[in-house]
């Protein structure tokens, strides 16, 4: 251990066991560090040291955690000098232990994170445990390994505090359900069952939840399974229908092929037949066209054709009339002109003088001139008469005639249109006639049997091809449904997975857990009573060994709540036992519990003789330091409890090692040469060895551990 309590620097204490003796003892006055060694081990094991447990009205009041560092008024765990003077404060304890499970090394250390830590929060704690091949600094795991060796819950049964024995005794006597019952149940390992039951109940709860889920999954699985079966059936049915269609399609294709073969056999006939079919088709079309052109022809002839035909004859008359009109117009002009000339000439003759009316010159030969005029009149009249005699019809008559003729005149394009209609009609007529002729010729070449055969084959082929097409469409429709069904099947298969939900393992697990819980509850119920009886028996056995009045007492009586009383030989309960007797009762019960619990740890007993009288002190050491005792037994005794010399003399043959804890100022001998020739200077707080001249500070309160020679 290093820098803990009054121990400055590193101190090593070896508790090696020779396998025969089991006694160890620390002796020291108050404040020399007996309890600090005891606490150093507790701190190393569980990381904390608590102030003493107190009893109040039979109930346990837990101790307060002691600080590692703190103010001067606090009882800190760290060595005060180290805390106040070291640059980096630290405290550490290493425990090496061995039992049937193997060896364990536990190292716990705190190091300051600041120059002067004012609270434990300013310390960094490290814990390392090496157990067998395992080495861990994980605090949780390390603590778990420690608990296997030194269970914290059982510490009262191997770290026994003599100063607390009175409180323990009070707790064991009082009628209280609190008291030490919890600790006693712990030492009897009842928590293994209670905690185990809780663990199993948790597992069972989860298992039941799994079963419920599995049931639900199973239900869903069955539903999916049914859906899958249904979909598979649907798909199978579709495939069957498709296969059936395929068969029918193949059959029809085969028949069509046969028809084609038959047709191929009548290839020449087929050509003719096809040719005739083509002609017939063309004829049908041509007849339709002819009908149309006939209608157009009739339509174009209607109210027009007669005009065209008549006009061809009347046109000449019309033209004659027109020319006659022109001639009549000319005659009329001539008549009028001749009349004007005659009148003019007559007038000229009547008014004639010898002056020329044209040139206003004197006419040389007037008579001759008049005669000439008269001749002109005469000639003009002759011409007039002749013209009048020649004209047949008048202009008006002619115009009336022309009007009648014009009513018969066709439209400008009528003739052309009629002509074209006629032309088309004739062309269609020709086409129809030609086709009919061709068909007649082909009919001559095709026999009626062949015609019938080809007709039947063609008809059959048509029906079959129509059926084939219908079946192919049906197949396509059915095939188009398949992908969605296959997709649904895949989805269902995916949901179902590879394994059917099986909750049988959960059922079995639930059953086993149930049996284990029943086993553990029955165990607890019966073990508690059996253990009580066994503890009572063991405690009585111990008590009878440590009591100074074995003739008076019969043992210890423990009730169901582990309340203890001393039993007299008479069978009655001791009503007023001494405090020493009560302490021995408590120690007896503690050791009995430790034995029944199979707890395999050394016993550390601080101030073991505090409340005992001399005979009981001796009886106690006689019991625990006996050669056949199965545990190491360490006492941390005040000089007043057990005298060093007396104890060594009395029990030297049972003690493996013993140490004295002192301050430098306690020493009457030289720390170096062990000479008694010492000179103390109280004023200077120093001691000087007159033999070897070694001197030391007697005011220091750092404990020196000195092994006692046995």
């Amino acid at each position: 251990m290093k820098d803990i309590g009054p121990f400055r620097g590193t101190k090593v204490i070896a508790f090696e066991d020779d396998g025969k003796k089991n006694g160890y003892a620390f002796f020291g006055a108050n404040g020399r560090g007996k309890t600090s060694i005891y606490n150093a081990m507790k701190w190393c094991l569980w990381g904390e040291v608590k102030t003493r447990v107190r009893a109040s009205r039979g109930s346990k009041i837990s101790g307060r955690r002691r600080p590692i560092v703190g103010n001067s008024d606090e009882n800190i765990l760290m060595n005060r000098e180290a805390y106040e003077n070291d640059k980096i404060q630290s405290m550490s304890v290493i425990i090496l232990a061995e039992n049937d499970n193997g060896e364990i090394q536990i190292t716990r250390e705190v190091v300051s994170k600041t120059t002067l830590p004012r609270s434990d929060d300013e310390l960094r704690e490290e814990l390392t445990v090496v157990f067998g091949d395992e080495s861990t600094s994980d605090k949780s795991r390390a603590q778990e390994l420690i608990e296997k060796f030194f269970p914290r819950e059982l510490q009262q049964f191997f770290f026994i505090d003599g100063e607390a024995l009175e409180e323990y005794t009070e707790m064991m006597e009082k009628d209280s359900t609190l008291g030490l019952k919890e600790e006693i149940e712990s030492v009897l390992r009842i928590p293994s069952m209670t905690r185990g039951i809780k663990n199993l109940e948790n597992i069972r709860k989860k298992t039941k939840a799994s079963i419920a889920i599995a049931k639900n999954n199973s239900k869903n699985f069955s539903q999916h399974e049914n859906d899958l079966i249904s979909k598979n059936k649907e798909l199978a049915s579709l495939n069957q229908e498709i296969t059936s269609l395929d068969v029918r399609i193949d059959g029809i294709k085969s028949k069509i092929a046969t028809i084609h073969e038959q047709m191929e056999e009548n290839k020449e006939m087929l050509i003719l037949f096809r040719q005739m079919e083509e002609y017939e088709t063309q004829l049908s079309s041509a007849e339709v066209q002819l009908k149309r052109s006939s209608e157009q022809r009739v339509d174009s002839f209607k109210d027009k054709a007669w005009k065209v035909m008549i006009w061809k004859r009347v046109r000449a008359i019309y033209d004659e009339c027109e020319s006659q009109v022109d001639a009549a117009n000319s005659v009329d002009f001539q008549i009028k002109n001749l009349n004007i000339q005659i009148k003019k000439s007559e007038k000229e003759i009547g008014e004639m003088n010898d002056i020329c009316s044209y040139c206003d010159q004197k006419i040389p030969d007037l008579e001759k001139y008049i005669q000439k005029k008269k001749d002109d009149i005469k000639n003009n009249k002759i011409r007039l008469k002749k013209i009048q005699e020649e004209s047949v019809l008048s202009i008006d008559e002619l115009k009336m005639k022309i009007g009648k003729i014009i009513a018969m005149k066709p439209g400008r394009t009528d003739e052309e249109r009629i002509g074209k209609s006629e032309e088309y009609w004739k062309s269609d007529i020709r086409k129809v006639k030609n086709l009919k002729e061709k068909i007649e010729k082909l009919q001559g070449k095709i026999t009626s049997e062949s015609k019938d055969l080809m007709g039947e084959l063609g008809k059959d082929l048509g029906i079959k091809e129509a059926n084939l097409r219908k079946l192919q469409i049906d197949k396509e429709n059915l095939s188009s449904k398949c992908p969605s069904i296959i997709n649904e099947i895949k989805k269902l298969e995916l949901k179902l997975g590879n394994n059917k939900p099986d909750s049988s393992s959960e059922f079995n697990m639930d059953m086993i857990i149930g049996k284990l819980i029943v086993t553990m509850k029955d165990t607890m119920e019966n073990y508690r009573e059996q253990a009580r009886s066994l503890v009572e028996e063991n405690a009585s056995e111990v008590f009878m060994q440590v009591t100074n009045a074995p003739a008076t007492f019969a043992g210890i009586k423990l009730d169901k709540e582990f309340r203890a009383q001393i039993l007299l030989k008479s069978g009655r309960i001791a009503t007023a036992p001494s405090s020493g007797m009560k302490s021995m009762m408590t120690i007896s019960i503690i050791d009995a519990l430790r034995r029944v619990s199979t707890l395999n740890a050394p016993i550390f007993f601080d101030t073991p003789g505090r409340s005992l009288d001399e005979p009981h002190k001796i009886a106690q050491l006689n019991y625990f330091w006996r050669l056949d005792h199965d545990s190491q037994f360490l006492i941390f005794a005040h000089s007043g409890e057990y005298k060093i010399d007396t104890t060594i003399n009395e029990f030297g043959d049972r003690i493996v090692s013993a140490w004295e804890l002192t301050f430098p100022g306690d020493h009457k001998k030289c720390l170096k040469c062990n000479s008694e020739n010492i000179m103390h200077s109280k004023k200077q707080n120093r001691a000087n060895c007159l033999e070897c001249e070694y001197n030391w500070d007697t005011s220091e309160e750092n404990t020196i551990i000195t092994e006692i020679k046995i």
Partner: protein
Amino acid sequence: MGSESDLLETVFFDYGRKNNLSEKLLREVFDLLIDTQFIPEGEREHIEAQLKKIIKNHI
């Protein structure tokens, strides 16, 4: 050290056998629970896992 025979173990095995549980299962469960009896309730998840594993192995 300890008592010559372990009473708790004896009682536990007696009742376990009465409930038709195998010796091997009882041994594994008992050893685990004894080894971990002082681990507080809030830190026992891994113990539950181990218990579950032990029981599963015996189905």
